């Protein structure tokens, strides 16, 4: 991947992206769905789009997912 491709990928935005506030509000629901089966992204495409684009929210999701696993 050259620099332009990486820049293009970084600048690309997804209109379905719900933003941090909504993703954070529903993160616990999304995380349990994601742990149960693969339907989380289909049910909440805007959150899936956001988590793919937002580093901090993606990190929080990974952390919550790991916490749920540690609790199981």
């Amino acid at each position: 991947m050259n620099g332009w491709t990486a820049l293009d990928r970084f600048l690309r935005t997804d209109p379905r992206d719900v933003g941090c506030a909504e993703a954070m509000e529903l993160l616990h629901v999304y995380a349990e769905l994601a742990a149960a089966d693969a339907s989380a992204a289909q049910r909440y495409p805007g959150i899936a789009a956001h988590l793919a684009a937002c580093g901090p929210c993606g990190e929080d999701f990974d952390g919550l997912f790991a916490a749920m696993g540690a609790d199981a």
Partner: protein
Amino acid sequence: MPPADPPGDRISPPPRFDPDSDQWVQVLSDAGPAREAALASLHDLLLRIARGELRRRGPQLRITGPELDDLAYQAAADALLAIVVKLGQFRGESKFTTWAYKFVIFEVSAKIGRHFWASRTVPMDAEDWERLPDRFGLDPARETERRELADAVRRAVDEHLTPRQRQIFVAIVLNGVPMDAMVTELGSSRNAIYKTMFDARRKLRSALAAKGYLNEQASRHS
């Protein structure tokens, strides 16, 4: 007419939650020693999750030893407070513990963001555009391409971004300031910073596509 409840007794509403979650909510909603014990148990759980999360993020952090544990204690205490205040907002859409863990994960993120400035030396508004190609992994040997990319983006930033968008783009992209550290520095929210960056990214992509640097058709779909 249904018979009246016996004096001093009341019929419990059917649980809205799974049994464990219902137990947490009931005991935390009551007063007395059972609540105190539940708060202590929840604090222990949150502390364990905070420590685990800080360990998981360890490689990105410049924090070790007692300072790291201090951060875990602060995150657990602040999360506990938030959970108590927001208990009435728990709707049983997930297990109570999953909902509660979310708060401690957010607190860990916020505390890492605040801690960033303790060891930071580069100002967030420094505009060294020669760094930009490195941010996108461009080979140092490809000097012409590096210069073209840096010049094109800088020109698009000059021409299309608002001062606020420029400030946040420069801090995050050129200077590598994490978004949660920007939240602390600007007294803003993660959502507001993300939205500003989102709009900046969209504008820059459109401007660079119009100049032929990026694929025009793909641009219309993003």
